[in-house]
């Protein structure tokens, strides 16, 4: 799993690639947490190249969303692959998270 965070228009855009499972989820958690600690309150997770997500990954996304919400901030997800979207749907995350088709739409939701 690789995560790179780039600032774009005052938003932290995190590209998460590869597999987000129980082994790699802690690394994502700590990188996103560090970004929030640095003062970032607007975040976009670009999941274009994320091929796999398990409940460990869902938990990190949920806890990051809650942290940002507490800081009056927001998290938007975009470019989910079909298999990943299926897991979000099954777990009911689609109704509690902001998910858009592409990055442009994600910026409009921030």
């Amino acid at each position, binding site marked *: 799993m690789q995560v790179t965070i780039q600032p774009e228009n005052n938003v932290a855009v995190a590209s998460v690639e590869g597999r987000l499972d*129980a082994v790699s989820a802690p690394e994502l958690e700590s990188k996103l947490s560090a970004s929030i600690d640095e003062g970032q309150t607007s975040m976009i997770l670009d999941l274009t190249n994320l091929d796999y997500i398990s409940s460990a990954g869902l*938990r990190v996304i949920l806890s990051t969303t809650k942290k940002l919400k507490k800081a009056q901030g927001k998290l938007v997800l975009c470019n989910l692959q079909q298999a990943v979207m299926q897991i979000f749907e099954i777990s009911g995350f689609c109704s509690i998270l902001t998910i858009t088709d592409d990055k442009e739409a994600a910026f409009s939701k921030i």
Partner: protein
Amino acid sequence: MTEALIIKYSATLENLSEISSKVLSAAADRGLNKKQLNDLELSLEEAIVNICNYASEGRDGKLEVIVDTDKDGRIVVQVIDNGIAFDPLSIPDPDLTVDIADRPIGGLGIFLIRNLMDDVKYRRENNKNILELIITPEA
């Protein structure tokens, strides 16, 4: 008739990748399609992560995984551990309607297994937890 795959490992997350790779290979040989393999991969991870985190309770947990086909042609992946008695199927489904602020962080693993597999069974036998992930090969 293909022989059953039987593999044994310590119940640690470091072994997840290797266990998964062997199980998926055996399941592919038995006819699971790509989507079913993805579903099995996720279910297997959830099952093993729960065992590593809970059933083992920090002791030297041991895992045995068996892949076989039953008499009805269904692929059965048995995940067997020697940890404390723990029936994952007794955990209630998470409440999906709850608002984000109130949604608890845990409880998803088992829920995903139940939704992705055709059937899931648990039994306790000889001081071991036996979780069966069952899936019927589709074209």
